[in-house]
C-alpha cells in the first residue's frame, strides 16, 4: 500500500506492507534511527514519536495507520542547529547516561509541557509512566523537565 506522510517537515512516499510497524518504517525505510526498538511490546517507550502532536509508541502502530499524518521524531526537534529547550535541559541536568531511552523520554517530556507548562513533580512522573530508563536516571530526568519548564516560561 502506498503511504505519504510528513516527517520532520519533509514529505515521504513509499509502498509498504500493511504489517510493517511504524518504528521499522522510520528506522529502516526512512533511515531515522532516533526512535529505538526496546521492548517491542509497548511498555518501554524508547520508540516514542509525535503523531499529529500526540506522543505515541511507534512499535505499536502500523505505518499504514500513519498515512497522511505529521510525524516528529527526535531528529526533527532541533531547529537550524539549535537544540530544543527540552534537549538542552536533558543535557544540562544530566538527564541521560547511556542514551537509549532518551529520544522517547524527550518526546514524552515535550508532551508533558505541551499540555501543562507548569507541572508538579507528581505530574511529571505520571507523564513519564510509559517510558523506562535502565540507567535509573529518573530523578535527573524529572529535574530536566522542570528545568525546561522554567526555561520555556522565562
Amino acid at each position, binding site marked *: 500500500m502506498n503511504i505519504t506522510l510528513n516527517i520532520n517537515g519533509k514529505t515521504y512516499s513509499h509502498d509498504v506492507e500493511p504489517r510493517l510497524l511504524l518504528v521499522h518504517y522510520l528506522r529502516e525505510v526512512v533511515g531515522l534511527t532516533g526512535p529505538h526498538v526496546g521492548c517491542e*511490546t509497548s511498555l518501554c517507550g524508547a520508540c516514542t514519536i509525535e503523531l499529529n502532536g*500526540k*506522543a505515541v509508541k511507534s512499535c*505499536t502502530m502500523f505505518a499504514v*495507520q500513519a498515512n497522511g499524518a505529521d510525524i516528529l521524531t527526535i531528529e526533527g526537534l532541533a531547529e537550524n542547529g539549535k537544540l530544543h529547550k527540552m534537549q538542552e535541559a536533558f543535557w544540562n541536568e544530566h538527564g541521560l547516561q547511556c542514551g537509549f531511552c532518551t529520544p522517547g523520554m524527550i518526546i514524552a517530556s515535550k508532551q508533558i509541557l505541551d499540555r501543562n507548562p507548569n507541572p508538579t513533580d507528581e505530574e511529571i512522573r505520571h507523564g513519564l*509512566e510509559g517510558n523506562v530508563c535502565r540507567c535509573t536516571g529518573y530523578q535527573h530526568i524529572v529535574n530536566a523537565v522542570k528545568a525546561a519548564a522554567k526555561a520555556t516560561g522565562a
Partner: protein
Amino acid sequence: MIPQNFEYAAAQTLDDAIKQIAGGAKPLAGGMSLIPMMKLRLATPERLIDIGRLKELNYIRESGGALHIGAAATHHEVESSGLVRGKCPLLSETASHIGDVQVRNMGTIGGSIAHADPSADYPAALQALEAKFVLKSSSGERTVSAADFFVDTFATALEPGEMIREVIVPLEAQGTGVSYQKMYQPASGFAIVGIALRIARSGGKISMARIGVTGLSGKSYRAIDAEKALEGKAGSATEIQNAAALVPQNVDINSDLHASADYRRHLAVVYAARAIAAALSRSA
C-alpha cells in the same frame, strides 16, 4: 514480533466500515490491544478496517440526560474532556488510570470494551455507571447494557458483523461521590484488581451505592450484595468493611502468575474498602 500479513483499508465513512465488517474485516481503532495480540500472533485477522480516524465515531456530547461517547474517542480525550470531568467524573478518573500517556493518546473506549480484557480499567466504571453500548451492524442497531455485554474473558455480546458505535453513561447527580481504586500490575499497568464506586447520600444515610469490579474474575461485574449492604447505612468503618467483604463473594476468582486467587480475593476487599471510603468522603 512481525504480525502475519493482512489486507488493510482505512474506512472513509461509518457505512463503509460496517460493510467491511459485515464482510469479515476486523475493526482496528487505536490498536493498543489488537496490535500486541497480532504481534504475538494470538490474533491473525486477514483483513483490517481502520476506524480510528472516523470523525463519525469521535465525539463526546450531552443529550437526553446522558453523555454519548463515540467508540473512537481516545482515553486521553475522555480523561481530559471538561464535559466528562464535570458530568461523569468516574469515567474521566478511570480513563486517567489506563496504561500510560502514549497508550491513552491512541487507545479508544470502544476498542477497550470490545477487547474485554478481564483486567481492563474501563469495565469497572462502566458497570458502576450502568452504561449502555450501542452496537451497529448492516441490519441496524441495538443497545446492550454493560451487565449483559461482558460475557467472559475476551468474550462479549458482539455478534459477527457488529461493532460498538457509542457508549452512553448517565449524568452524575450533584453530590454523588465517586472513586476508582486500583492495584497496578507494575509492568503493564493493568488492574490486578480495580474497584469503581458511586455513592449518593441523603439525610445522613447512603441512598445509592454502585460498585463495579474488574481484574478479579473472567469478566467485570457489579457487586450488588455489597451495594445493598451499604444502602441505608451511615457508612461507619465497620459498615464499609462488612460491605467490602461481600465484593469477592460468589465469584470465580482468577489466579495467575501475578496474583493467586486468595491474594486477589484479599486485594478486592482492601481496595473495595478504600474506594467506598474515598467515594463516601467525596459525596455530599
